Every structure is written in C-alpha cells, then in structure tokens.
C-alpha cells in the first residue's frame, strides 16, 4: 500500500496543472516541491543514517549563491555554473563531514558542530560584501535557457517552473531511493541502529557516514542552484540555522521513517502559511509549535501514522 502512494502522488502532480488556474497556486506548489526536495535529501542523512545535520541550509545556500554569482557577475551559462557550485558544496560537505566523523562526533555534538560550521559559512557570506552583497542579498534576473531539439525554452513562467521543480523533487527522490534500496542503504541502517555491531560485521562506518552526508548535502545544493533563479532573490538568511530547523520540522512532521514522509511534510509546511493568512511572527510560532507537538506526541510524523515501520531491506 505505502509503495504505491509516492507513484500515485507524483503521477497526479504531473497532470495537476491541467486543473490549476491561478498563478499563486502554482507558486505555492512549486515552492512546496523545492522545499520537499530539501526535506527528502535531508532525511537521507537524518532519518535513514541517524545523523542530525544542521549543515543542510548552508549547502543549499552556498550552491544558490555560487550559481547566481557565476551567472550574473561572470556571464556563465546556468547549466555550466551548476557544476562548480555542486562541486564546491560537495567538497565543503566532505571537509566538514570528515572532520566531524573522524572525531567520532555523535548526535548532539554533531548537530552543534554542524551548526557552528553552518554559522561560520553564513558569516563569510554576510561579510563578503563585494561578492555576495552581504545582508542585502542578491537579485537574480537571468533566466536559464534549456536547449531542446525542438528549440530553446527559457525557464520562466509558473507552468515551466512547476515542472522544473517537480523534476528536481522526483530526481532527488529517485536518487535517494536507489541508494537506500542498495547495499548502501543497509550500511546506513547499521550506522543508524548500532555502529559498533556494523563495524564488526565489516561495514566501513566512517566512509558510509561520510557518503550519506556528502550525497545528502550535494542534493540540497542541487535544489539550491535552481531556487535562486526561481525566486529571483537570494539572501544570507537562506544559510541560517533557522532555515535548517525548518527542514528538520518538515521531516519530523511528515514522517522521519520514510522517504515520502518528508515530501508530505515539506508540502504541508510550505502550503500552510499561505492557506492560513499569517504574519511572519505567527508563522514562526506555528512552526515552533508544530515541531514541539510532533516530537512529543507524534514522533513518527504523519506518514508514520499509517505505514509499517521500515525494514533494512
């Protein structure tokens, strides 16, 4: 039963634009897709490998900034700019992860250190005014163009971005799913549940932890590359700890034990503030309350309410 839900959901998402009229609905759903993609890649690290990383927003933000800067200030083509951006994020994650896992940082201390690294990167972005425009943020006016055999499409417009965002979400989902279904997923489970036992059974715990962290963070970077071009605006707030926290809230709300739970959580938490008209402060209060509620009352999240607990295989 729970295997079919993602397929049905994604299929409906493909045809849904036929029913949607208003641009604002498109916008909400598109944002939902992008944030859901962030939540999915985060859960690879958190729900499946058991590492609470507060580095996700930083990975997302760095990629967003790099792509935007290369395109706007240096005239690169969007698609070419993605490569160094993802490489940079991957290398950063590799460095941070290697340091943390080399020193065997667990759970809480890992969370705190990733928070610290995330903040340091954010401070660099905030203060490097010449390149990033500091706290004022950057506006992105360029539009990526996609060359197809039938001619080129410029990535603008609600409908186009809807499909682009959906594609990113589905791509992230599929990549994570393939990894989790493979022998790598079993190693992640070993890390999550009993590292010591996994190590004696021959699993290279350090390497697989690092793999999870780098892959998840790089996928966040992929979303980041596109995000700036969709919203047209990037600011250092994207790299903040609060942004990472929002992602954690999405995953916890939707269900930390599955890959589809984060999709639900991401879409819900994005759509909610728009469905109920809230001021910024009330929205934050709501997020905080949801976070607390989920942890204390519903640790398995929404999707966890009606799915079997997952197995290693």
């Amino acid at each position, binding site marked *: 039963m729970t295997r079919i839900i993602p397929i049905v959901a994604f299929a409906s998402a493909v045809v849904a634009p036929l029913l949607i009229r208003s641009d604002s609905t498109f916008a909400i759903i598109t944002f939902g897709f992008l944030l859901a993609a962030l939540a999915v890649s985060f859960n690879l690290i958190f729900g499946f490998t058991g590492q609470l990383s507060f580095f996700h927003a930083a990975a997302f933000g760095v990629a967003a900034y790099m792509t935007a800067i290369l395109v706007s200030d240096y005239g690169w083509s969007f698609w070419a700019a993605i490569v160094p951006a993802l490489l940079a994020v991957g290398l950063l994650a590799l460095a941070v992860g290697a340091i943390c896992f080399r*020193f065997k940082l667990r759970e809480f201390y890992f*969370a705190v250190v990733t928070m610290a690294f995330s903040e340091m990167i954010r*401070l660099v972005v905030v*203060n490097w005014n010449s390149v990033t425009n500091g706290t004022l943020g950057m506006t992105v006016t360029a539009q990526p163009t996609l060359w197809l055999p039938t001619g080129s499409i410029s990535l603008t417009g609600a409908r186009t971005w809807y499909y682009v965002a959906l594609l990113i979400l589905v791509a992230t989902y599929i990549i994570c799913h393939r990894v989790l279904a493979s022998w790598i997923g079993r190693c992640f489970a070993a890390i999550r549940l009993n590292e010591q036992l996994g190590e004696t059974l021959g699993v290279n715990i350090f390497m697989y932890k690092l793999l999870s962290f780098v892959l998840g963070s790089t996928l966040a970077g992929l979303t980041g590359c596109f995000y700036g071009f969709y919203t047209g605006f990037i600011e250092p707030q994207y790299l903040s700890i609060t942004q990472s*926290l929002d992602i954690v*809230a999405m995953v916890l709300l939707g269900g930390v034990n599955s890959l589809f739970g984060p999709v639900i959580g991401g879409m819900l938490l994005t759509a909610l503030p728009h469905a109920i008209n809230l001021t910024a402060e009330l929205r*934050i*209060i709501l997020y905080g309350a949801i976070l*607390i509620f989920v942890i204390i009352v519903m640790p398995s999240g929404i999707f966890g309410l009606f799915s079997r607990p997952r197995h290693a295989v």
Partner: protein
Amino acid sequence: MIQLVIGQLLNGAIVGALYGIVALGITLTFGITGIVNFALGAFMMLGAYFTWYGYEMMRLPYPVAVIGAVVLVGLFGLFADRGLFRFTRNNLVNGLLVSIGLISIIEASVLLIWTSTPKDLTYVLPGSLRIGGILLPKIKLAVFAVLLLVIGATYLALTRTWVGRAAFAYSQNPEAAALMGVKTDRLQTVVTVYSTALGGLGGALYASLYSLEPTLGAYYVLKAVESAILAGIGNTIGALVGGIIIGITEGIGSVFLPTAFRDGYGMVFLVLILLFKPSGLLGSK
C-alpha cells in the same frame, strides 16, 4: 589608554558573568535532566523584557521589577518543564529540537507584542566611582556584584545544603540517588525552574545596561553553551570561569580585531574544543 583597557576588562567581565550565569543554568540542567536547554537564552530575554516592562511601563522600582521578572520567568520555566521537557529527559536530540521550537515561539511572541524596536531602561543607577584614577560606572559594578553573589550562593547551595548535595549525587549516579530517597522527578523540575530563574535574573540585570532586542537570547545562549562546554559540562564554577574567559577575550579582542568576525572566533574555538576535548578544558564529566 589604561582607562580604555580597564573599561573593556570590566565590560568583558560583566558580559562574561552574564554568559556565566546562563552557562550555570545550562550546566545544572544538563547534569540533572540530561539535555542542553538552549531555551535558557529565550528565558533570559523574557527576564529582560519583563524587567523593562515593570520598570518603564509600570513605573516600579528597579529591584521590584527585577524580582517580579525573575518570579514570572520561573513560572514560565515551570510550565515549560511540566509541559514539555518532562518528555525529553536524557534525550539530547529531542531536547535540542524541543528547546529550539520553544525559542521560536517565545521570540516570535515577544516580537509580536513588543516589536523589534530596541527598548532601553532609563538610568537605573547613574554615576561612577573613581577607583585608583579609573572611572567605573556604578551600575556596572553593582550588576557584577549581584551576579557574583548569586553564582556564589548557588555554588554554596550545591555543596552545603541537602538539596544541593542531592542534586550533585543525582548527576553522578541517578539510580543510587533515587534509592536514597531523592525524589528525582521533583528534583529535575526544581533544577529546571532554578536554571530558568537564573537566566531570567541575568536578563533582568542585562536590561539595566544594554538595549533590548528579542534576539538577545540567541546570542547569549550560544555563548553560554560555549562557556559550559569550554569548562566542561558538569562543572558549575567552571561555567562561570569559562564565561568570564570568553567575555574578557572578546572584550579585549574587539579592541584590536574586526568585530564582524567576533562571533566566528567563538565558533572556531567551540568546534576545536568539541573535537579535541569534548569533556571541556576543565572538564570532569
């Protein structure tokens, strides 16, 4: 020049003592309830705002406002403990997430009610004392004295009174303490409320010196956690020492180094400590 350096030293010491009092709360809470309660920063901020409201808006005498604020914050701490933290005992990750959720709620509420416009208290204790040729503002001396007093009293309570020793015994060996009749559930609540009240007091005193913004808690709690980890979580006086070290280093450092990256130094320091000596510089636990 001497005036500048001594002035910065005093500032650093006060700021450090403020870090220290929150760090003390962090350490106590960790030892007894097993979580690092980041929300203590938010409670400090509440203490500051309540004091401002009592002193500026209700025209209460400053000491009355302070006491009222501390009591109110303590009550908030009681609700938080019975309603929330009761469910996250000894679960560091859940405790972290719940405390951050609580921070969001508290900060956003204060933002909503009192807006982000900085609030200032009109002079609580104007004038300075001249000691050995240096001018020291009276209020700063008073605040520093109060902080030292309270922290000292806490230390004495922990080592001399029955409650304090029970708390210490519990932090070392929960089962043995329970067997000896220590009511652990009540102890945990008492310690949480006391830590909150300490934070609230810190905030109340902070209000007499600096302008208030809803985000002041986040800044201080991060420093407080750094102080606690620096000293070694579990080391109560160490928390104060750690706080003062950080406070003074920042104060002197800001004279010579760019302030923009000041927070960054603390971060780097924190990461290095956690990597190489997770039990802290003076650590015991």
